[in-house]
């Protein structure tokens, strides 16, 4: 991954910065240009909750390039306390320990590294709360 592609997502990945539609209040992660509920184009920044629960999950046993060292890893759709759902790994949690409804909190983790010499990519993961 080239650094610019990683860099432009930093507010979302480091601080869970999302966008809330100024008209209808719907929250988008990441922020987008048009609200799909009310067609408004005005958004205000909002920080997502850092706690939630597992809505659904899997355990990845056959990883894409760059994720081998972490395999197997638990991947989940997490429903945060503000109702926003996001796909993230559940770290410090074995495939046999995860379940629908598991309370989690969000931690700052390393997501991937671009080889031995590339940029280190950070972001959010859930951990059992």
């Amino acid at each position: 991954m080239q650094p610019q592609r990683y860099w432009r997502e930093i507010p979302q990945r480091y601080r869970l910065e999302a966008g809330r539609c100024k008209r209808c209040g719907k929250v988008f992660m990441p922020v987008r240009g048009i609200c799909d509920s009310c067609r408004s184009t005005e958004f205000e920044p909002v920080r997502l909750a850092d706690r939630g629960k597992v809505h659904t999950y899997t355990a990845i046993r056959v990883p894409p390039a760059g994720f081998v060292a972490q395999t197997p890893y638990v991947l989940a759709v997490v429903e945060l306390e503000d109702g926003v759902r996001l796909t993230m790994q559940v770290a410090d949690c074995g495939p046999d320990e995860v379940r629908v409804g598991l309370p989690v909190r969000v931690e700052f983790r390393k997501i991937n590294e671009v080889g031995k010499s590339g940029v280190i990519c950070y972001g959010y993961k859930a951990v059992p709360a």
Partner: protein
Amino acid sequence: MREVAVIGVGMSKWGELWHQPLRDLACEAVLKALAQTKVDKVESIHVGCMTGGLFAGQEHLASVVADYLGFAGVPASRSESACASGGVAFKAAYAEVAAGICDVALVVGMEKMTDVGGDEATYALGTAADQEYECYNGATFPGLYGMMAVRHMHEFGTTRRQLSQVAVKNHANGLLNPEAQYHAKITFDEVESSALVADPLRLLDCSPITDGAAALVLCPLSTASKLGKKAGVKVLGLGHATDTIALHSRKDLCRLAAVETAAARAYKMAGVGPKDISLAEVHDCFTIAEIMVTEALGFAELGEGGKLVASGATAMGGRIPVNTSGGLKSKGHPVGATGVAQLVELVTQLRGEAGARQVKKPRVGLAQNMGGTGGSSIVSILGVA
């Protein structure tokens, strides 16, 4: 709008075609399709391919295909909608013929998937998901469908055995299809003891990596008997829809809204309903997908797809046979070719040429092709002309 007929269908050999480069893939399928017609020249070419770039380093595929078919000069374009690329290419060709823009159109679906390693293939397929908010975090397609399966099991009590039933059924069907990639009867035990790929999905819950192509020749129904050599099959209905790119953006992870919408549009256009369908080819990229798709198509109520397959209703000889070709599971899944190959199966069945797997006197066939986790879907309904 003119009514449109399919007068020629063909499939290349499907499998791990080590000798065959991307550029040659289309040829075998197209020659077979043209051989079923009296046509030797087409007016338009529509190619469906997900990512020739990532799988084989080749884009600009419409021109590549036209050139290697000896049709350089003919207008050609390429449609991309991930694994629904083939279905979307068919729609583009259909629209041209229906609108009178051309009188003979060729549809080619193709994918060359074995020129990359396993993790590169996982990456390439992953580009059909939300790259920055799913794949960045380690999502894979088996993983995304695994999460759909977990939720479906959680909400509706869908069972491991019901997932297995899809694989067992489709491999049984594939055994009867000489063109299928895998000719192997598989048992419940084999499915349930195969390697975990993304819980709860195991290797035999997943469609394979396949090289292959499929082709269709389309013309107005009015000229079908003149240009075709075989019994006419016409397009009754077509529906196409999209949904959010990321699975997590959906209100309900157990529903495939794009499939529901595409089906509703296709049923309406064709003037038929789920009960009128003689057979269906659906996008069983993973076993859970077939269960969810049969619900979205109205073959079962929401949450009842597992019970539907367990009841045998979708097996050969059942109320509504699903994936008589063997489906993506057994026939293979060269992603861009799949949507076209589904229509090849429908035409073959509607003509009564399906041999050992022939459904008894089918009148109406439905094909459902899907991109990503259901971010796009196209439903086509064909009938005996």
